[in-house]
């Protein structure tokens, strides 16, 4: 059964592109809207399996899309939403992650260029996982650089941490870094020990734990 998806994007070309891209990858696009109020209606009315939302939408062209997504998630807890933006902000990432229920994605629009990875991210979010843009993670790690426990990580562990924070599973990480899955498992166990976190087998819960930890370390 194909996933039902709602798309919110005000630029026609990009909206059309997204629709075609997702349809080509066997998604069922139930609605493609272009403004905040429409989006909120579609999200709460149609209850899609996942929504792909642009931050900036009419009528105000501020963070209409983000607000609609947050409102919809308050009404329907855990509603999977993937937010796209021309720029990423830790502030927004924080707000999206704040309810701790996962099923959240936050990516730069550029990531759409790479169809495979983008579709993978959409599926991950639909399955209740997270997809954080590498740039968000890089900023997060850069601003926590002074924090002690992170300094204790080996370079390899740091790479694993970055990919893990983006929301990737052990299998995906092992593919990315050309490691065996068990090696990745060892690294993650070591990271969790160093950061004093409770290990978890569930990929999603693990990612949320890492992101919460990094956010908290920011103070």
């Amino acid at each position: 059964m194909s996933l039902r998806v709602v798309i919110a994007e005000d630029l026609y070309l990009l909206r059309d592109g997204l629709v075609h891209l997702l349809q080509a990858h066997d998604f069922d696009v139930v609605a493609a809207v272009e403004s905040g109020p429409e989006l909120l209606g579609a999200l709460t009315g149609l209850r899609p399996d996942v929504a792909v939302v642009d931050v900036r939408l009419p009528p105000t062209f501020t963070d209409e899309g983000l607000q609609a997504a947050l409102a919809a998630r308050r009404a329907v807890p855990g509603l999977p939403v993937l937010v796209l933006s021309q720029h990423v902000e830790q502030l927004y990432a924080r707000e999206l992650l704040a309810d701790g229920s996962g099923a959240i994605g936050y990516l730069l629009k550029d990531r759409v260029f790479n169809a495979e990875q983008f579709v993978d991210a959409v599926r991950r979010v639909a399955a209740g996982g997270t997809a954080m843009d590498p740039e968000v993670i890089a900023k997060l790690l850069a601003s926590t650089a002074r924090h002690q426990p992170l300094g204790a990580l080996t370079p390899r562990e740091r790479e694993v941490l970055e990919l893990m924070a983006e929301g990737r599973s052990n299998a995906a990480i092992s593919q990315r870094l050309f490691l065996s899955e068990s090696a990745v498992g060892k690294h993650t166990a070591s990271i969790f020990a160093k950061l004093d976190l409770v290990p978890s087998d569930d990929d999603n819960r693990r990612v949320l734990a890492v992101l919460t930890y990094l956010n908290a370390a920011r103070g």
Partner: protein
Amino acid sequence: MKTHAVTVGRAFVLGATALFDVVLAVVALVTSLLTFGLGMIFLFPPLVRLFRFRTKVARRLTGTWLGTVVPVPYLPPPPSARPQPDGWYRHERQLYKTPRWPNWHIRLKWMVGDPATWRDGLWVLLNPLAGILLLLPLLLAGYALLTLRSADLPAGTSPLLALAAALTLLATPVFLRGYAWWNHLLLSPTAKSVLAARVQRLDEARLATVDSQASELRRIERDLHDGAQARLVAIGMTLGAVEELMDKNPAAAKALLGKAREASSTALVELRDLVKGIHPPVLAERGLGDAVRALALDSPLKVTVTVDLETRPDLPVESAAYFSISELLTNAARHGGAERVWIDISSSDRALRVVVTDDGSGGADPSLGSGLRGIERRLAAFDGVLVVNSPKGGPTTATFDLPNALLGENGPGCKSSLPRGKAAIVGICWGLGWLPLFPQGMVTMIMKLIGSEHRSWFLALYLPEPLQWPLIVFNILLGLSMYAAGTIIPTMHARQQRLAEVLPARLC
């Protein structure tokens, strides 16, 4: 009791110095005669300097003793003469070898043309009269003693005079307030000179703003030219090559397409950074508070942000405040070696106030750091002022105020008609001024002069002989000052209104 004694003491000191101004007034009259009668204009600048010195003292005393701050009213000094290309200095139709005489002429013109010069003169001329008023208790007491000596006066004269002396002594604070008001009236800037100063400041601010805008545009142009534009050209060329290779060598074409995509990604990254430098998206989307919070999150320092704003400031103000805070934050990290920074954004009245404190090593100086100068320039466009307190060893506190930032919501609130109390005083002054001036003053004086027996309702003539003249003079003065007050109060109010229109933040 003690404070009253201090007040009286001050009144006497001020009165005594005011009496000495008689000397200054005589000097001024003589000098003016020589200057304008005999054309000895070289005497004029020293006289003006003398006046300015005297009024400077008066201004300071009015501020410290009487609690009425009197701003310095003079027009900004003119720029000195500049040599022509041939090295000569020109003043009107004359050429000079050295800048000495042109400068002298420029300064003379500046002094003569400044209304404050003439107001200073008027103040010095009238100040002895004010001195008499301030010394009234002493004068009355002295008069009482004199009348006590002479026996041929009706009984009760001296006690009456002593009573008057005591009353004026009690009323000294009121006199002093009047004196302060009078000083403020003549010695503070006229609307014209306030405007002139304002225009000069605006001129400077405009220059700085245009300058920084232009350099900003140049930077953007350069970034676009070397960045995104160049990349787009490269992408176009790559796509052209792909077109050619497509049939012959599909594998190479595919590789080139990958490259084109990469280049477009890089172009996007560069454009994103550029946009961030022009107007950060968070600022557009969320306003100042969240934009600064986002800034704090991206900073390597531990930053605490407190925002207490009810309304969103105007967009240009917001942007200026944002970039100033960003610059201060960068400074704290780069030069101050700080670890913690506190940013406090609040509003006071219609002003936006931002305080940035860090625990760095301090020693920041706006006159040295070009970053701080840039902030000053940025803020100047909005009448903003940056104050940096950064002792060696820290902590550094940078505060800036943007006075009109929150104007939009409240509207100009200082436009008002004359307050009711003042309007009543003006009404009484105009309605009853004739009473002391004519029947009880002038007419009584004439009756007294011609020695008429007819006392009718002329109050002064019922008093003992030595008190008759003082009361007549007092009545005439009272009448005159009532008319003066009736004229001056509405004029002052109108002036303040006019100033309020051009200086919304400063004066209301």
